[in-house]
């Protein structure tokens, strides 16, 4: 998995690409660090270039959510491909995050 973080109006945009599995935990820690340091109340994950996410990847998003909530940061998962979108649906992530197409 690769990632890029940029500041946007009101928060940060995190663009993920590639495959997100257990071996990406180190990189995702860096994403979480950005979330901890951020100003604003929005954290948008752009998933349009994310090809695959497994159960470990889902867990990483949930850890990010645990970091965001005390800071009143809303996490949005945006632009998931059909395959990744199906995983988010199976995991009922729409009950936990703002999920947009």
């Amino acid at each position, binding site marked *: 998995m690769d990632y890029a973080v940029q500041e946007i109006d009101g928060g940060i945009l995190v663009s993920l690409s590639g*495959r997100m*599995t*257990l*071996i990406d*935990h*180190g990189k*995702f*820690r860096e994403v*979480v660090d950005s979330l901890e340091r951020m100003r604003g109340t929005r954290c948008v994950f752009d998933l349009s270039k994310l090809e*695959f996410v*497994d*159960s*470990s990847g*889902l*867990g*990483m998003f*949930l*850890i990010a*959510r*645990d*970091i965001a909530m005390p800071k009143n940061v809303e996490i949005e998962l945006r632009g998931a491909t*059909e*395959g990744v979108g*199906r*995983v988010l649906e*199976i*995991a*009922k*992530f729409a*009950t*936990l995050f703002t999920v947009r197409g």
Partner: protein
Amino acid sequence: MMGGDAGPNQPTDSAARLKNFLSGPTGGTVGIVVSPHGDAGTIRRALDGDAWCFLELDPSGNLPDVAVPEDTSGPPWRQLLLALTTGTAFSLDGAVLICDRLVVLGVLADSRRPELELAIHEALSNAIIHGNLGVRRGASSDPGSFDRFYAAVQGALAVPDVARRRITAHIHWDAAAIHVSITDEGRGFDAETVLTVEPDAKSGRGLQIIRRIADRVAFSDHGRCIQLSFRR
């Protein structure tokens, strides 16, 4: 155990057993590749070369102790079998290799591929991490928990006798469905005790995902073998 008749003078030497097998009823060209190298490139070349069975030798040069069914159906074959060490299986995207091959063979439609790849990936991950490596506890709410979980996985992989344990993936199909069996050599578990996880659980949702995707899920050998079926 290899395919072929087991007689009173069954050789114990792996190379001799293999030679006997390949000399058996199915002849020399049987679509089986035996290799000391279990990397993705070697496996992919074997499958692209119309092999249906890839057997990775362990570091001591021994054949895996798996039942290799005879196959006189092809080429084209109607099954795939990968028998890898745990170290190798962890290092590569086995589900990608399997699904790539099934798509090339016309067995798996592109539209179905994402779900099957995920289910097979989760089944392989469970067999590797929870089965053969014996790492039971997943990540928790602590951001450092993934680091510790991964460290536990790496620690187990560093033990030679653990890393050489076998992961076997056997895939076969008919007109109606694709059947996948993933087998490990771990302690086993009681699948009935794996309860539904909450949506915000940081780990333990692999089996839940598998059950949502596969049309049939069954366990055998005290949880060491998971059998999945997917309608085509």
